[in-house]
């Protein structure tokens, strides 16, 4: 039933990669990732593929970002709008397998499940994905998690389910960023919510992550369960999920509600549609935290995952539905 998927594209591995291999990131990428992604992004203008399967001039494109930058450069407004602070503030936020997730709405098996219940039915694997933030920076992240479609197969959305809505935990005691600021305003309308169409949720690329770099997710990365939709801007990949609701109508999404002219429901990575305040044609790829660990590279349509997802948007005007 599940779509057959190119093994190379997903960078699947039967086991979680041991840390020693991560240590030599460049070698690791040469062995596993580049070979696959080279095939993925052929056809992109200006990209030359050499005989050895290494993309000329694009060595950095798919080099893994260091564990430090992945865990110390986080947009997690529930903690702070600062990108470094979540790593400090999340130290005591260590949810375990008793974390509860509500499955609600148009679904045959609604209920409150613990993460442990869910994981019993899921197959966790490792996937290396590019992450492109709407702020025009990006990383390459080795996630551990399970395909969202597996969860859908298990909980069985009804035929009425056209969308999936996700919600982050709302608890200002854990997340001080959810409190009012000094002028009485909230940084965002809480709780954070995001949504996908049911077709997007069923796409094999959509992942529910439980770990990164072979370890369970740190608090600042959205412990213990977060969404990863690599062809969309990062804000779609909602963190610390407590509710998954299947709906007939398009759910409200936090950023879309806050600034509808800047953040759309679809939020597909698209170098041709600029953010009203900045260009999306290029991105600053963050590789490590050294002062020159950042390189500007061109942004790819659907973040380079067009082959897997472009068909979802065949009849959609992507300029209008950004």
């Amino acid at each position, binding site marked *: 039933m599940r779509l057959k998927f190119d093994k190379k594209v997903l960078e699947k591995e039967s086991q979680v990669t041991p840390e020693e291999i991560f240590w030599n990131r460049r070698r690791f990428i040469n062995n596993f990732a580049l070979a696959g992604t080279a095939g993925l992004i052929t056809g992109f203008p200006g990209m030359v593929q050499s005989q050895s399967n290494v993309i000329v001039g694009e060595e950095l494109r798919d080099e893994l970002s260091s564990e430090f930058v992945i865990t*110390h450069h986080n947009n997690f407004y529930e903690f702070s709008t600062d990108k470094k602070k979540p790593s400090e503030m999340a130290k005591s936020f260590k949810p375990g397998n008793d974390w509860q997730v509500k499955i609600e709405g148009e679904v045959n098996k609604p209920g409150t499940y613990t993460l442990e219940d869910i994981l019993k039915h899921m197959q966790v694997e490792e996937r290396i994905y590019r992450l492109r933030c709407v702020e025009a920076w990006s990383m390459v992240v080795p996630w551990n998690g399970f395909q969202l479609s597996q969860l859908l197969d298990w909980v069985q959305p009804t035929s009425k389910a056209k969308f999936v809505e996700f919600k982050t935990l709302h608890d200002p005691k854990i997340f001080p960023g959810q409190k009012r600021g000094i002028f009485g305003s909230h940084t965002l309308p809480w709780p954070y919510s995001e949504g996908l169409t049911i077709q997007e949720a069923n796409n094999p690329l959509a992942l529910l992550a439980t770990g990164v770099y072979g370890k369970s997710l740190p608090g600042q990365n959205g412990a213990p369960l977060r969404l990863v939709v690599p062809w969309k801007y990062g804000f779609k990949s909602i963190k610390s999920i407590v509710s998954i609701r299947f709906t007939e109508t398009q759910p409200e999404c936090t950023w879309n509600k806050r600034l509808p002219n800047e953040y759309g429901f679809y939020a597909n990575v698209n170098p041709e549609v600029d953010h009203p305040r900045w260009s999306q044609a290029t991105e600053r790829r*963050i590789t490590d*935290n050294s002062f020159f660990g950042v390189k500007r590279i061109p942004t790819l349509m659907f973040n380079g995952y067009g082959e897997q997802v472009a068909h979802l948007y065949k009849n959609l005007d992507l300029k209008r539905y950004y």
Partner: protein
Amino acid sequence: MRSVFWFKVFAHAFSWLPITWLVYAGFSGGLGGDPQTKLMHELGWWGLVFLLLSLSITPLRRLSGVYLLIKFRRMLGLYSFFYLCVHILTYFAFYLEFRWSELGKEIIERPYITLGFLAWLLMIPLAITSTKSFQRRLGRKWAALHKLVYTIAALGLVHYIWQSKSDLNEPLIYVAWGILLMLLRVKKWRRFLFWRQDPSHLEQLKKGS
């Protein structure tokens, strides 16, 4: 006068602290996952803070009666200009990788960059004419020219708010600070505060009577 000298030494040392720390932190991994962006934002923030500090000198000396504070007004303004120069330089170097054509494009296409850049341009004549000799040479015109600093501050604040994504809590602190400073320029608002006359002005009054 001796004490002013040491205060000045202290003020200079204080003014160099942020950039020294930022450069050190940048190279020792203390600026987080994206040190270039962090450096750029911090420099811009300090530029704004130095500008507001400089603008606070006049009302502060009136309120406190410590008239020697005037000795620090120009210095703080020039440090603001310095931090903003480096702020723009980091943007040009790290975001645009020294591509002039893109600098032009960004300035035209991105309104918040347009405003920020305009504010910096307007600061150039103020920095050049900040010397004592220019002050003397320009006389009344000098004071009129340097009123531009309020426009610059307003542009800087709008630039700061516009680039922030959603959280206005912090930018609003500086907006409140800026608005207070501008209100203090309006005579009828000053009456609500404990406001002292400049001593030189008082002496003139005495002579006149």
